[in-house]
């Protein structure tokens, strides 16, 4: 009969070190997951910090304005569809623009199209859907499709902006050249990609 000598001390030490290694790796993974979840659990106000002073997120607007924003984005798709079919932007009558008591107008200047909505109640906000086509002869915009960039079937890249203005009854019924300089606030549903965001 043979006798086998087992070094129990060394074995348990090795086991302890292995446990430490497994704990370190497992703990690292758990920590990364917790950090990710915690960063995503922060409110919209933290996300708003990367926006410019004249920009805001739709989620921070009053409930009624959030609905108006969503409806306006849907109307945009309708307008783009008409533009793709007829090669021109539809008139107000050809669209179902949101807001029962809103009066909508269309203004064009060069490659920029404004759909401006003024409220019947002057205390409500005005809304502006601004669409910018590419300047003739310019290189195609490489930005991927997102909230600010839409691509028509022929490859034309449109720049899209949705704006709102407090006390909409005080807004002049005219083309808005530089909304960011006249009290308009650009609205996003999520923070734009900083690489492709259009800085005005």
């Amino acid at each position, binding site marked *: 009969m043979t006798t086998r000598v087992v070094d129990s001390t060394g074995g348990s030490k090795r086991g302890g*070190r292995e446990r*430490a*290694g497994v*704990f*370190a790796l497992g*703990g*690292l993974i758990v*920590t990364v997951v*917790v*950090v990710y979840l*915690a*960063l995503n*659990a*922060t*409110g919209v*106000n933290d996300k*708003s910090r990367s926006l410019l002073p004249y920009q*805001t997120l739709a989620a*921070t607007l*009053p*409930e*009624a304005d959030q609905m108006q924003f969503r409806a306006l984005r849907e109307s945009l798709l309708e307008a783009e569809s008409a533009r793709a079919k007829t090669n021109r932007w539809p008139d107000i009558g050809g669209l179902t623009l949101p807001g029962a008591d809103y009066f909508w107008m269309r203004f064009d200047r060069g490659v920029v199209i404004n759909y401006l909505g003024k409220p019947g*109640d*002057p*205390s*409500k906000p005005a809304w502006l859907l601004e669409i910018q086509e590419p300047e003739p002869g310019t290189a195609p915009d490489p930005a991927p499709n997102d909230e600010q960039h839409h691509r028509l079937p022929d490859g034309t890249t449109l720049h899209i902006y949705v704006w709102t203005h*407090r*006390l909409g*009854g*005080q807004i002049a019924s005219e083309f808005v050249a530089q909304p960011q300089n006249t009290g308009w606030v650009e609205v996003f549903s999520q923070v734009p990609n900083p690489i492709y965001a259009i800085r005005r």
Partner: protein
Amino acid sequence: MIRLSKYRGWRLSAILVLLMAQAPLSAHQVVVYQIVEMTVEPQNDRLVVGLHVPASVAGDPALTRLLQTGDEAALEEHLRIVGSDIARSLDIQQEEATLPAPVATVRPGADRASIDVVLRYDIAASNRELSARLNAFTSRDGLVRTVAHYRPAGRAVQTVSITGPATRIAFDPPVTRVLTSFAVRGLRALFDSSDYLLFYACVLLPTRRPRLILRLYAAAAIAQTAAMAIFVANEPAMAAWLPGATMAAASAIVIAAIQNIARARVRCVLYVTVVFAVLNGWTIGQSAASVAQFAGAHLSLAMLAFAAVVLTGELWLGALIWAFRTWLDDRGVPDRVLVLAGSVLVAHSAVHRVMERGHLVTQNGSFGGERAVTWLTLAWIAAILLVAAASAVRRGSGRAHAS
């Protein structure tokens, strides 16, 4: 005790003084806020909201002029529009449903440079889960701050002060929401502060027994929690010294790194750990105090949740560093090399922090700028010399006893 020869000790101190006394003076930056005062009073099935709004933040450029000229007919029309706009932007909700439009009364303020708005809402009699979108005002004259006082019947007034973009605030939120939101805020505070990571890395660099590490952690946890509690209870007095405290916390990391290099005794490590924990608790207490206003009637529970998450997170990350250190030890990395290299890196980073915070102290004006850095360095040197002297006296009396 730190085992340094006299020459080496003074040389180190001289280097520290030279490194730290570099903070240049700079001008003070004064931010002037335009204040919107607001009161929210639930009265059974009515909610009365009162606002005192500077005319310049009301969004109507004609309002300031009309208040001055006294064209009452035009003014009345503008006040009506502005009142409706304010009610709409407040978007007061009960149990996450927007309340029907209120009855609004708007009057010029007594100073004719502001307006007083009273909004009366019909609400469910439960008075529960009311929220409002605060600080939806903008001004070209500077930043706007809304100070809202929520006055529930028969209970203490809760005050919320908001600046920056419009934010929805729940008045008197339910306890479950408070606990979860303060747990997340605690986690954020933990990630925003990285001093404790540097310090833990420093303390855990030398191989130490787990029981000793737990003793150090327990001492640090008690000291840190006490400092946090004192800060929350007495914020105005404590906040004035915050820049100095953050600078001192960074300097404690430098001292901990020097202790590693000098192979300091455990007792000295414990002293520095407690000093660091108090200073770190000061900083984290400031984070807790800045969000305390969102706890409604559950301030104590909110602070407990906050502190528990911070302490658990620190313990977790400390355990992770310890496990990593053990793993390195297992790979055969020489202990002394690791301690020296790690301590030098940590000390380098901490010295930069001391310098940056020295600049902040200068801007804040709570200390005399570069003098503060010098005094801080001298205070540490004095503490080291005191410990050395006490040890020498003890050793001397021990020898006398033996003879």
